[in-house]
């Protein structure tokens, strides 16, 4: 079986070596490179063609989120897992908007990193359980405070199914195949979902799914 090629990006050398020690013990993973700033990461992501980039947010020069944006915009780009100290939705939102698939808290890296790398390499999303929990709590609290209706109740069961698949990172075509319907129908469902939930971008859709606990 082909090993997953991983690129590590963190400006903190102790952190980097810790991550490396963790990954090196995994038989199906291979760390192909380490970088300590955003620019270097962008370069190595291009030249080394890794499957997954594990990216720290706060790095000198170009920060992790900007670097993710640059990397993801390229053709045949690797999946990016963001490593962050913040569980706040503003960071999660930025990371998702930039194109990251996974969002991992550093203090739970040891427990979740392997799972996250595997999930994103298969095109799925991954969030630290703590992040999902906080986002969900915030969502519920805001709903309660504002006394708003939970828009999730407005969705049909088919729409909920499609929402989950889309949020997991599947493309329209994959969803169509999985549900045995036409991609055109998927697109129609998708626009209905976005309209009902008052969402505008794929990133917002993923964030919503995390908040609702549909994906983790």
């Amino acid at each position, binding site marked *: 079986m082909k090993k997953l090629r991983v690129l590590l990006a963190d400006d903190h050398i102790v952190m980097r070596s810790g991550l490396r020690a963790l990954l090196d013990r995994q038989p199906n993973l291979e760390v192909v490179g380490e970088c300590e700033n955003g620019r270097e990461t962008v370069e190595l992501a291009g030249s080394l063609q890794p499957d997954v980039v594990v990216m720290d947010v706060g790095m000198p020069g170009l920060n992790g989120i900007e670097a993710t944006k640059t990397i993801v915009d390229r053709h045949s780009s690797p999946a990016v897992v963001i490593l962050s100290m913040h569980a706040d939705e*503003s960071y999660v939102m930025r990371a998702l908007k930039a194109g990251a698939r996974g969002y991992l808290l550093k*203090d739970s890296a040891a427990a979740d990193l392997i799972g996250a790398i595997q999930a994103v390499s298969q095109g799925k999303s991954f969030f630290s359980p703590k992040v999902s929990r906080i986002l969900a709590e915030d969502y519920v609290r805001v709903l309660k405070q504002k006394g708003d209706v939970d828009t999730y109740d407005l969705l049909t069961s088919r729409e909920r199914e499609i929402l989950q698949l889309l949020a997991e990172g599947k493309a329209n075509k994959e969803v169509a195949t999985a549900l045995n319907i036409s991609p055109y129908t998927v697109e129609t469902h998708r626009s209905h979902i976005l309209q009902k939930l008052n969402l505008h971008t794929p990133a917002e859709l993923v964030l919503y799914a995390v908040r609702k606990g549909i994906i983790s």
Partner: protein
Amino acid sequence: MLTEHPWQRLVNGEAADCTEQRDNNDEETVGQGDQLMIEKKSETLIVSKALSRNRLGSRGALFGGFGALLVLMAIICLDSLRTLGAFATYDTQVRQELLYRERTLEQIRAGLYESSNIARDYILIKSDPQAQEILRIELQSIQNETTTALKACIQTLPLSKREPFQRLALELEHYWTTIGPILALSPKEKNLGNDVLRGDVLSRNAEIIAITREVSAVNDNELKDADRRIAEVLAQFRYRLLMVATIAFSFGLILAGTTIIYAVRLEKRAQEKYYESLEAERELKELSKRLVEAEERERRAISRELHDEVGQSLNALLLDVENLVQMSSGDEAFRQGLQKVKTLAENCVNEVRNMALLLRPSMLDDLGLVAALDWQGREVSKRTGMVVDTVEENVSDNLPEDHKTCVYRIVQEALNNCSKHSYAKKVWVVVSQEPHHLRVSIEDDGKGFDPSRVCGLGLIGMNERVSQLGGVLQVDSDPARGTLLRVDLPLPSTSTPSRELSS
């Protein structure tokens, strides 16, 4: 989840506490500097004391001068009045004396004339003893009157002037002794009497008239003398008056000059003081600005240090511990020990992250104002249960650093006030960017307050921050109505609003 932590109070702007702490530190570390300051202070105190003494002296001199001038003028007035009064009295006295003398002389002349008439009548009258007796009595009375009048007049004269009058008295006495016997003549002897009358009496009569003329002339001279003397004294008086007036005038002139110089100097000093106070005010403003900047810089540095160094190291530690756990073979006690270390490190990471966020949220630097404000709203809402609704309209990601920090800190302080004092259920935070302005409003539905009476440290601090950027802060509140805080910050022309980044 953020917990109440000592750091939080510092961040939430309980400036009084931290200032106090800082003061204490200063006292310990800058003891020597304090000593110097005290010396300097006492020096200035001495100088200012000397200055004030000097000022007191010149003020006293001015008061004295004005007092002296007034006294001098009063003396001149009194002296003039007194002198003029004395003149008037002297003049009247002299004239009255001369008039009295002249009248006496006149009386004597009249007496002489009358007595010679009586003598003539006596000679002409034929023997009529009764008529003769009447004439005799008449003559006697004239003689008495004139003698008494002359004597009285002489009595009033000073010794030096008595001589001609005494001569007159002597001559008059001779005259009476000459005329007296005529009236004692018998009718037979009357022819003889006629001779006597024509001879002795008339000659004596002429003599006396001459003397009275002489005396009159002397009187006239004396009158002229008196007039001359009065004129002289008057001239002297005028001269004296002129002298004294000149002195008073010069003195007044000097005094006026001194006063003007003094006033000008005072005015100049006041002006200097005014400029000094303006300068001091400016320096104070500058100092407070630098203080705010330094505080912000320091917070950011500590926050970064905590976040990037301490936090990252702890995360690395966590990783290493996890690696150790995975590598360790069967020893359960060892694994449990490692698990403890891991839990401890996890707690530390949380603690450090919270500290760093409270000091200065990394979102402000990493993601911009919008993300930081949203985060702040969520945190306050989570901590207090108050609904915080944040809306950002067209707020650019590349706002100037100072503006970003200013808005963030103001919202932070306002939310802190709301949660502490207002009992609000909901707060609306709106930040909107216009081409040349950044407007912030924070409105709550709490119990409000009277802005004219309450002006806490928080409001002062906010005002300070806003005015440093040339903006305006308005507090609109009433008890039992909520509070609306509005800030209008002018923007430098470089930063442009961008729509896509609003959340």
